[in-house]
């Protein structure tokens, strides 16, 4: 069954929806910890910053069905592909592939790697990992969906430091030039790259002004507030609105584990079982 896409005039977020967003976000964080225990290396913090965004997307924003290849579905391009570990459990939960795959995450021959492979993983709309490509992919999907008169919306999840990549802006100019109202870029503004704070590594601000100057409609949101995220993602204009939308989601890299939040050293890491257990308990107290 297609997902129940909310209409733009929704103001209040239903309680059940908020509960679902929180449930998914909690699942994303706890499963990320569990799966990285298998891999013994992974991008916890880049997943934690976008957990509520994933909660809203998979909690009803994305137009999906039981068939991961349904042509009229919404597409979600994980341009910051290193957060795929947070998406795999949601795809398994939807029945797109056997949950058993999760148990052997990153082990030899398993379809699930740190960066996602569309040919191996049902529900992954594009293979990603090399930063800077996702917005061009989304632009192509949005253009093609419009040419085929599909109702699909194309969502692209971008990292913030990723905005340093020049190709992002090639895509930004094209999406505006072609008037792709069915394209939505969500910037996970978690404030950090690998080497440190974005503005110290290489300036990305003013993100909103940059996208606006390229001709995009831009909104900003607290990316950890389920209600605000739901209302913002629900309020994107109709797919034929003629302008692409950029949502800058203000988030915290590592959100949920105190010592990981905005910590340079936790871009990549591993929690041994005892620390993983402590982290899981800490996450159970997280109130978003």
């Amino acid at each position, binding site marked *: 069954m297609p997902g129940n896409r909310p209409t733009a005039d929704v103001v209040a977020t239903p309680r059940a929806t908020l509960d679902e967003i929180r449930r998914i976000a909690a699942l994303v964080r706890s499963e990320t910890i569990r799966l990285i225990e298998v891999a013994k290396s992974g991008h916890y913090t880049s997943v934690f910053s976008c957990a509520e965004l994933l909660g809203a997307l998979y909690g009803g924003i994305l137009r999906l069905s039981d068939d991961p290849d349904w*042509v009229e579905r919404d*597409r979600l*391009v994980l341009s910051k592909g290193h957060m795929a570990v947070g998406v795999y459990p949601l795809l398994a939960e939807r029945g797109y592939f056997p949950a058993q795959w999760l148990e052997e995450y990153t082990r030899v021959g398993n379809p699930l790697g740190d960066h996602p492979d*569309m*040919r191996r993983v049902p529900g992954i*709309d*594009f*293979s990603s*990992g*090399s930063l800077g*490509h996702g917005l*061009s*992919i*989304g*632009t*192509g*999907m*949005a*253009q*093609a*969906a419009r*040419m*085929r008169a*599909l109702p699909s919306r194309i969502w692209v999840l971008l990292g913030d430091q990723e905005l340093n990549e*020049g*190709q992002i802006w*090639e*895509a930004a*100019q*094209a999406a505006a*030039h*072609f008037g792709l109202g069915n394209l939505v870029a969500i910037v996970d503004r978690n404030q950090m790259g690998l080497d440190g704070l974005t503005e110290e590594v290489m300036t990305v601000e003013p993100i909103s002004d940059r996208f606006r100057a390229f001709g995009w409609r831009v909104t900003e949101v607290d990316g950890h507030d389920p209600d605000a995220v739901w209302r913002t993602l629900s309020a994107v204009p109709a797919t034929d609105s003629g302008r692409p939308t950029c949502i800058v989601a203000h988030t915290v890299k590592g959100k949920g584990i105190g010592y990981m939040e905005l910590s340079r050293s936790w871009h990549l890491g591993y929690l041994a079982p005892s620390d993983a257990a402590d982290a899981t308990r800490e996450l159970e107290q997280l109130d978003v």
Partner: protein
Amino acid sequence: MSSAARYRAPEPSHERSWDMARSEQLARSAVAGNVLADLADEDERIAVLTADLKFSNRTVDFERRHPERFLNVGIAEQHMVTMAAGMATVGYVPYVATFASFVGLLCAEQLRTDLAYPGLPVRVLAHHAGISLGFYGTSHHATEDLGLLRAVANMTVVCPCDAASTEAALRATVDHDGPIYFRLGRGRDPDVYAGAGDERFVVGRLATLRGGDDLTIVANGVTVPAALEAAATLAAEGVEATVLDAHTIRPFDGEALCAAAAGSGRLLVAEEHNVIGGLASACADALVDGGVGDVRLARAGMPPDEYALIGPPTHLYRHYRLDAEGLAARARELLEQR
């Protein structure tokens, strides 16, 4: 702000004056735009993208007939390749066209990561390949693209040498599953094949254009007509050369190459590419892998550590001995060895 630029009809005041419109009239072998437009009449999956070069590559011919499936992305080649990949996932078979240097080299990562790795049916029209842009210089030359792409899994690489083989290659591969890199000339290539139905041209197979027992000349692209002319010159001297058009570099028809080489024992490989990594390397690989010994292989192409001189293309082909006269001379040298 509106542009004051106007499109005018060509009005040269002197017969030797020229503008781009007149130049384009010379590009008679740049047929891809029209061929794709013909195919698109029957196939709604076909779309064409270019990067501010629609007149140079004649994709404007496609635009005129199918404007709703034509996209000019501006000077943004990497975006163009990746955007085409996105379109391919939604059911299109996109053809992206720009200079070979600006796609085979500039977009190497996009070709690998966004087309070949996911195995998407995007086709690249990499035109003005090799040193065919002459005195526009090394920035506009592509003499390394085959070397790069030979190592890319899932990639098919085809180098048609004239209008007929370009059309045949495009028509034969519309339904191919993965990406294809078509390496094309500048559009002023003489006819080699009789037409798009010429049975000698089959994608994936070496085409034997002439038979002879004394040596084998393997060529592709711009060196094919030169090789045929060289073979005719040699024939007048009593030397009979086989001429093979090795248009498909990947996958390479190593079996046929070995069979041809084993006969003459003399192989002259002529390519508009660095002599490392391209056609000569493909031949050498095939010979070694095929266990064919006792073959002399001579490499005609761009020297390993040289970027081309400044000069008009035909003068450069002469300088680097890639024209008929140069290839005939290289053939004589090869026959004199041992």
